[in-house]
């Protein structure tokens, strides 16, 4: 489990308008690029001082590569981060107000309390 890194990916994409579009258009390649080039960059440090050990699990990588927000919820990604990014990715494809958000809720209907642990 690398919930921290899962959240870090979502956080990193969500704050960058170019990465939002890149992730929308080609999620698998964006995840592969990010994991190779960016996963070990520590937010507040020069790149030369990064980590050397960050790696997504296969399940996490696949959930990100397939835009599978239901799987991300199950894996314990922070729901606020996931929701915010996925609204940016897909709200535009829905004509009804809150259309995407309500579908998102419906797709998670099989979950009841307790939800997956989001502690990192």
């Amino acid at each position, binding site marked *: 489990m690398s919930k*921290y890194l899962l*959240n*870090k990916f979502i*956080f990193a994409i*969500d*704050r960058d*308008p170019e990465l939002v579009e890149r992730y929308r258009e080609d999620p698998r390649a964006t995840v592969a690029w990010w994991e190779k080039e960016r996963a070990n960059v*520590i*937010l*507040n440090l020069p790149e030369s001082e990064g980590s050397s050990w960050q790696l997504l699990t296969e399940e996490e990588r696949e959930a990100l590569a397939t835009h599978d927000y239901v799987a991300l*919820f199950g894996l314990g990604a*922070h*729901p*606020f*981060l*996931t*929701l*915010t990014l996925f*609204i*940016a990715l897909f709200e535009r494809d829905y004509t009804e107000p*809150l259309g995407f*958000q*309500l579908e*998102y*809720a*419906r797709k*998670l*209907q*099989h*979950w*009841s*309390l*307790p*939800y997956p642990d*989001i*502690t*990192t």
Partner: protein
Amino acid sequence: MANLVAVLATTHHPFFYRASTAPPESRPDFADEWVRKVEAYRETLTRARPEILVMVGSDHFHQLFYDNMPQFLIGKAPFYNANYYNEEREFGLPRMVLKGHEELSAYLLRAGLDAGFDFAFSNELHVDHSITCPIITTRPQADLPIVPIYTNIFAPPLPQPWRYVQLGRTLRQLIDAWPVDARVAVIGTGHLSLELGGPRQFGPHGPDPEFDRQAVEWIASGDIEGALQAVTLESLWSPGNATHGFLDFMLMMGVAGEVKADYADTLDLFHTMEAYFTWYPNGADA
């Protein structure tokens, strides 16, 4: 001595700005009532004639992330840039620049440390909608210097609920004891029951109207003990997965003390209930 002229505790709804500024043809049907309620609430601050605003909120993973997550943080800077790209994108919020009050920030940091709160601090804080939403609703001219105080309500492990109350009580004592002749208001925002990114999100009401009813009663009546007896970090998952934002309301109850609110109002909206509370610790005409 400083005069704590008003304590305001409210929800922060990022859609208010867009709903209230939309042209008539795209204005949602609930906007008029919402604007009326917000303007009435704004008057509760205006009449107190504050000079400095202490703003309690919570960063939504904008500047603060899991690599370096403080529980309680005070901003100390002459200015605060405000609102982020993803808040413009999702909520249509405007970019803002707020003045800071460094002297009060420095005092609260020093005195807070001495009173047992080992605050983190930031000399370059870019605040988000948890600070700007209440500016937009209660002081839209955004002309007063602020002291931002952030709490962690998002990234477990969180401090226990009593600790938020204790922080509120401490802030109250410190502001009351600040040896500067200034009119200070404390404005804090949180949430009632709320679900974000889960199966109960964006329903016709907040996810747990019964929790909301009880929470409004605790706040309006100043029933800190009742809230503390009922609320645990574990129990807050039940009304909705983002209901830990209620901890900021508990903090504000600590600031206000165990007294009835001088003003209490609510608005039942889709997704969440809005709530507006004001106390005048030294009387409404202090």
